[in-house]
């Protein structure tokens, strides 16, 4: 291996493992995330030029030292007033201080800043992907289906708000931790969901996002091992990920969960998910993510028993509905009721939701309705519901699946 290749491999490895740690450490005092990212990017460029002559013993410490020097240079170039001079002095003092050999991990504090209630909820997941994992705006934009320029502006605006409005870099106190952690977990789950919603895996960037979501979930779970919901979210993502490959058959057609080949599920991921969920449940504090993971667990038990545990799924959705009041949960609960008490009972549960305006454009509501009507041999009503579902679906594989179901209705 040439020295250039070795240097590049080391730099990539450090970026992969420690990017967020370095950004968090560099920005913790100034709260200037953008400046920290710029300085770190300069430091990585310097590393690629310098490391072929010899890779430092502690690459992270080397990067921190160079990044700080770059940050001071950049601040000097901008230097205009007293305030800036004071900041340059502060940074120079930090540089003078003994070189860091053991960089404290402040990634959690950075994540809590990114998911602060003062930051727009829609930009929290992109912000975490950028600051902790180093994704560029164009990559994030394509994953979230937003124009790159727009995403860049929104990220810059959020970082500006963190710096100028005084958003603290801190893990919240016990009293507000629950709510604030929920925001961090929601942002991670949003990143994962963006990746998971591309089941065919045709877009490498999106699939990558599901893996990155799990990586972030593992990170938070390892930094907060006593938070049951952090574990619950990790378990939920692992369960979902285990079924990724089974969601399409070899022809690329959509396969619903109940018809998936259990041999195509990833047994190792399921095993890990079960262990994480068990650890969470022993803490005796139930929450949304643990319940959703428990639903997944009751589904994948089919690989052992031949049938999903619908009685358990029904009960868990009851608890989830009481906790969240979400119409999406209510639809899933209706599907579970149909399995335990028959399609008429399931349809009655769906009818109870019909007044919710949010569901008029929600494909799963119409697909669930169509499926139950078909099972009750009401072909005409089922066809109408399938038409609504087909018209609202954007994934061609799912659309083909719904069209096939509609075509198979008795005339």
């Amino acid at each position, binding site marked *: 291996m040439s020295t250039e290749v070795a240097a590049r491999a080391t730099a990539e490895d450090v970026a992969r493992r420690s990017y967020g740690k370095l950004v968090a450490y560099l920005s913790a005092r100034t709260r200037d995330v953008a400046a920290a990212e710029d300085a770190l990017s300069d430091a990585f460029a310097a590393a690629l030029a310098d490391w072929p002559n010899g890779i430092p013993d502690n690459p992270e410490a080397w990067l921190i030292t160079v990044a700080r020097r770059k940050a001071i240079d950049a601040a000097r170039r901008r230097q205009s007033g007293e305030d800036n001079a004071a900041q340059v002095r502060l940074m120079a003092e930090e540089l003078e201080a003994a070189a860091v050999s053991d960089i404290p991990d402040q990634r959690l504090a950075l994540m809590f800043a990114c998911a602060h209630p003062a930051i727009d909820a829609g930009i929290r997941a992109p912000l975490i992907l950028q600051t902790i994992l180093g994704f560029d705006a164009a990559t994030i934009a394509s994953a979230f289906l937003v124009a790159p320029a727009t995403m860049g502006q929104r990220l810059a605006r959020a970082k500006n708000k963190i710096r100028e409005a*005084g958003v603290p870099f801190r893990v919240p106190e016990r009293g507000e931790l629950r709510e604030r952690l929920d925001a961090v977990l929601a942002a991670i789950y949003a990143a994962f969901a963006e990746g998971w919603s591309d089941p065919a895996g045709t877009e490498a960037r999106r699939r990558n996002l599901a893996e990155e979501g799990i990586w972030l979930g593992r990170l938070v779970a390892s930094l907060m091992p006593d938070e049951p919901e952090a574990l619950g979210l990790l378990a939920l993502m692992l369960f979902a990920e285990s079924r990724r490959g089974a969601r399409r058959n070899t022809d690329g057609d959509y396969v619903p969960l109940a018809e998936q080949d259990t041999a195509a599920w990833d047994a190792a991921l399921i095993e890990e998910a079960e262990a994480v969920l068990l650890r969470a449940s022993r803490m005796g504090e139930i929450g949304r993510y643990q319940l959703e993971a428990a639903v997944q667990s009751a589904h994948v038990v089919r690989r052992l028993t031949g049938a999903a545990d619908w009685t358990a799924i029904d009960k868990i959705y009851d608890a989830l509905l009481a906790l969240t009041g979400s119409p999406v949960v209510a639809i899933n609960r209706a599907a579970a009721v149909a399995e335990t008490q028959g399609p008429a009972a399931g349809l009655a549960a769906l009818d109870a939701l019909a007044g919710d305006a949010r569901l008029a454009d929600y494909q799963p509501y119409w697909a669930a309705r169509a499926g139950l009507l078909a099972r009750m041999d009401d072909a005409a009503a089922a066809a109408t519901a399938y038409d609504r579902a087909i018209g609202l679906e954007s994934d061609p594989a799912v659309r083909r699946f719904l069209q096939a179901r509609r075509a198979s209705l008795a005339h």
Partner: protein
Amino acid sequence: MQYLLMIYGNEAGMAAASKEQVGQMSAAYAAYSEAMQKAGVIRGGERLRPTSEATTVRVSGGKTQVLDGPYADTKEQLGGFYMIDVPDLDAALSWAAKCPGASTGTMEVRPIWPMQ
């Protein structure tokens, strides 16, 4: 950091409040200001007279325009403000939430742009 806490509320509602309600509100504000004094965070604060007494001024093309009324007609109006000095946004938000105006209207929290 310094923050301006702006208290927005419905003026018409305030004007229609009973004497008892007004007394209650005044006492709540007095206690709130006192708490901020004790904590050493308050840098200033005033109650504003209603927007019916506001006048807007603008100089355009060398000509001074003076208009009767507030800058913008909104559902809730700026009725008062506090200036505070606290470590970060969380502390500022926590003080904003304690303001009696937060339960009857909306608080806007804005960091002060420091003069060089």
